[in-house]
């Protein structure tokens, strides 16, 4: 056990994968609770498709992936929020529009340039080898930003998530915080998607929140537990991926599924005991 651990840590790419992965998992879990409760679960999925399109373009232009992808996905996130806010197009339809549109552009660009190669495959399904030193720096910055947001504006985030109209009526600048959450979500997704895969990254946003909600009945409990569960699942998933040579993203999602099942059972048992 310890030998395996030491062996894993002797590879710099594994250290980076653990570091970036844990930080991304932490951020996505915190942001995810608010997104899931506000019925924006699919925003992660939509943004990851936009990220895929942006990465394809970056590859075609021979540019650094993050430099292209982060601004594009941030803009898409703000746009999605704006469209959902107006009643003309409903939130779920807006996400479907933007995500399929971006995916199509990405595929067009790929087919006209490199064609379907390993890079593209890795964007789709993730690769544990993908994390660079730059990613490590970015993810540290991101997690500091998210932690500051949650530490200092926790009460406001609660109010906006629970009841946006009331929050706005009592002087909370809901738009500011919503935009902030959208932007941070966008950055989280871009950082996480090359490891987890564009198709799987949204699981990091959704699973921990839903898992925690099976058992915890107050907001603080759900937030704290999501953060812990998310990081634990990521570390387990990446370890499994290393030991059994399975794709990192899929391994993490499978661990998350198992965790959801365990928490569901605990939730049912707990309710039954309370009922008596």
């Amino acid at each position: 056990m310890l030998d395996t651990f030491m062996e894993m840590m002797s590879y710099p790419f594994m250290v980076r994968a653990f570091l970036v992965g844990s930080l991304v998992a932490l951020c996505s879990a915190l942001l995810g609770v608010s997104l899931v409760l506000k019925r924006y679960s699919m925003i992660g999925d939509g943004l990851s498709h936009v990220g895929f399109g942006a990465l394809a373009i970056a590859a075609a232009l021979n540019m650094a992936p993050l430099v292209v992808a982060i601004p594009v996905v941030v803009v898409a996130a703000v746009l999605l929020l704006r469209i959902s806010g107006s009643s003309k197009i409903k939130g779920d339809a807006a996400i479907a529009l933007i995500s399929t549109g971006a995916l199509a552009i990405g595929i067009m660009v790929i087919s006209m340039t490199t064609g379907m190669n390993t890079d593209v495959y890795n964007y789709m399904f993730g690769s544990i080898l993908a994390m660079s030193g730059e990613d490590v720096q970015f993810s540290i910055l991101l997690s500091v930003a998210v932690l500051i947001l949650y530490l200092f504006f926790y009460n406001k985030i609660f109010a906006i998530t629970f009841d946006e109209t009331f929050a706005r009526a009592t002087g909370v600048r809901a738009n500011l915080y919503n935009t902030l959450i959208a932007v941070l979500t966008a950055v989280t997704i871009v950082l996480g998607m090359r490891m987890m895969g564009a198709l799987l990254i949204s699981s990091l946003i959704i699973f921990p929140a839903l898992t925690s909600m099976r058992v915890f009945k107050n907001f603080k409990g759900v937030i704290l537990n999501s953060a812990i569960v998310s990081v634990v699942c990521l570390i387990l998933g990446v370890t499994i991926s290393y030991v059994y040579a399975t794709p990192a993203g899929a391994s993490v999602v499978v661990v998350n599924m198992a965790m959801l099942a365990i928490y569901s059972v605990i939730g049912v048992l707990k309710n039954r005991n309370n009922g008596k």
Partner: protein
Amino acid sequence: MALVKCDGISIAYEGQTVVRDLSFQIEQGDYLCIVGENGSGKSTLVKSLLGLKPPFKGQILLGDGLKQDEIGYLPQQTVVQKDFPASVYEVVLSGRLNSRGWRPFYSAEDKKAARENMELLGIREMEHQCFRDLSGGQKQRVLLARALCATKKLLLLDEPVTGLDPLVTAEFYQLIEKVNKEAKIAVVMVSHDIESTIQYASHILHLQESALFYGTAQAYQNSTVGKRFLGGEGNA
């Protein structure tokens, strides 16, 4: 000066004028009931009173030291709240946000105010329960406690008894009357339930784009509009 004075306001919703040339005022200790049919502009008016939707004509003046973010609002419940994991205490305490400004954490005073309001509305013993597990009437009490945390002067209630059974509705009206009389907080209530509200309200505003009637509850009962509306409801 009145707490709120609306002076010839017109409000549009999605490009259409839904409230036109409306004037009325709310004094300290008033209990104003806003009635009217669906689509008569009640909800839009509520948004304007909260400062979320400025009127395109006329103005809403706040007086007696009432600040825009110090109106205790009890909104209609949203879908989000059906499965929201929040304790009663967390919800009630969130009403104190307007006293926080940029300071991030609640003070001991905020926590005390939350506990006092829970006490007043008889929900103190459920403080650790989950909001989504409560009954309809209990949820409304929690949201009322939150609204009380946000204000010392004016409560704004949007259809607060929708979906409650008659017994719980009656209890809820009594609670609001208690808040109005004992805590001397002015109440503005949007309601469909005209027959009950007329017993409690001091003033009635009957809205149909503009004010069909605005005056005391007693005068409303004797007015043509009031007779028709009250009588019509009785026959239905």
